[in-house]
């Protein structure tokens, strides 16, 4: 990773899994390059934005407790994470949640295997 720490990478992977909740035929987050893509996106971001986005990742890990769940994000099960996400989406922090979800969706759905499952092969667009 260029920018992300190991912990941040792990949290982002969990976030991807929470926001997208992939099921077959969509591949699991671990089978995509979503985290590496987020890392590259961060590396290209202005410094303040980069700091802010990394901080948001940490907030996302801790937020479920503030939203009524018993533990932090990576310790929750699938349904508990879904519940925490819904609560965050309905909260006053919605703009920040939206920003994070934008990046998660871009990172996950930009993976080549994911796009091919949806009928898009980037290589066929190149001469």
């Amino acid at each position, binding site marked *: 990773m260029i920018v992300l720490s190991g912990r941040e990478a792990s949290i982002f992977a969990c976030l991807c899994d929470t926001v*997208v909740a992939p099921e077959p035929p969509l591949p699991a987050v671990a089978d995509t390059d979503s985290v590496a893509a987020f890392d590259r*996106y961060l590396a290209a971001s202005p410094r303040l934005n980069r700091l802010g986005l990394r901080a948001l990742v940490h907030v996302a890990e801790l937020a479920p407790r503030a939203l009524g769940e018993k533990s932090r994000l990576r310790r929750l099960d699938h349904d508990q994470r879904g519940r925490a996400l819904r609560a965050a989406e309905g909260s006053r922090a919605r703009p920040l949640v939206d920003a994070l979800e934008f990046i998660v969706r871009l990172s996950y*759905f930009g993976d080549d295997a994911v796009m091919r499952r*949806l009928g898009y092969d980037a290589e066929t667009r190149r001469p």
Partner: protein
Amino acid sequence: MTTLHADACVIGSGAGGGPVARELAEGGMSVVVLEEGRRFATEELNARPRDMMPLLYRDAGQTVTEGNVPIVLPLGKAVGGTTVVNSGTCFRTPDRVLERWVAEHGLEQLAPDRMRPHFEHVERETGVAKVPPELAGKNAEVVKRGADALGWSGDYLERNARGCVGSGVCAFGCPTGAKQHAGQVWIDAAERAGARTVTGARARKIETRGGRARAVHAKLEGGGSLEVRADLTVVACGAIHTPLLLRRNRLGGESGQLGRNLAIHPCTAVRAVFDEDVGMADGVPQSYFVDEFASEGIMFEGAAGPPDYLAATLPFSREQLRELMLRFGQLSQFGVMVHDSSRGEVTELAGRPRIRYRLSDQDLARVRSGVEKLTELYWAAGARTVLQPVAGVPPLHDGDRGPLAAGRPLRARDFTLLAFHPLGTARADRDPGRGVVDEHLGLHGIEGLYVSDASVIPSALGVNPQITIMALAHRLGRHLLDEAS
């Protein structure tokens, strides 16, 4: 520090800088072009929006306005500027807009009959032609079907492309080199005529002496600095960065208009799910337009692309997101663009642009109306589900016009908005008390300093601006050569 000497220094290589650089170089001047971004070979453009966004867009596309609604305002940063990542749509400045510039800003030189030869020139050089139906894509076809059913006016768009095969990723760099962006058309030709382009060069200082611009000082990526001593300086950094460069150098501020009068053409997108295959990633992404409501300040233009491009802005998560994306093949997306009356301002904070823009009630009403009308169009086209870009509005089914049509009160921030056409922040006006540049785009009160980009455009256009910018730039190039001779 390295020092170069030239007849002209052009800061920026996009739609504004490119045509001037070429005109001056082909006219026999020695030209140095300073470009903050880098040059991208066609082979590097890999048809993957997620990969290309951090490379081709300034700050990975994270330029956002402040105001009553955050509006993402992506800007290109490369040789060719934002034309590397635009949709390639070409419109001439509408005659009524040019006539307004003449009447309200004293810009008689920009009257329609005077601009015509410049439009013709840039269209010829960039290969502007109407999208043939067979390249337009099914996304356009379903919208055309809806427009035709309602009797609404529309047509295939004109674009600057040669040999287009409908790769579907114009906004992320054309992987076949078909899109005739400013780097390919103007900068390459300028270099063949002897111009020199320095990439990774960020202009910091414009040196003036005796009421005349004399040199440009730039910092180079990777270290070092460059000085270009030239009798002519053309600032072409775009409507966000040109006013910042001028203000930093205490130039162009006399009228009080520098950085002000920002128009952006705010946009949003409506999506629809059909039973039939739409394949929106195939064909030209922005190939068709509906101008039935242009007189109300509302245009509909295509906004298609690959899965990640769509998914990123869908306001859904988990099951809803997954199910929708698994139907990517049946999804259509089309854009609403507003000819805004709102005006913003660009200033600088901690070395970074601060873009303030408040969407007026009038423009909010236009956005709302555009979304309602595009919804109606999709029902007429046979959609099964319509997704409006409004917080709290669920997917609509089977002809349901939803809460917008029922009159639900909405705020600006209930809409997801983007914008791609920042204009007006160094506006042209014959009167130095009202404009930053004169009708020849020369900075009022300074010799040898010109502005050639969207910042000089004195009002919103209501149409995509690249032809306007290029035509004004070509006109400036001809003017500078005439003056020199």
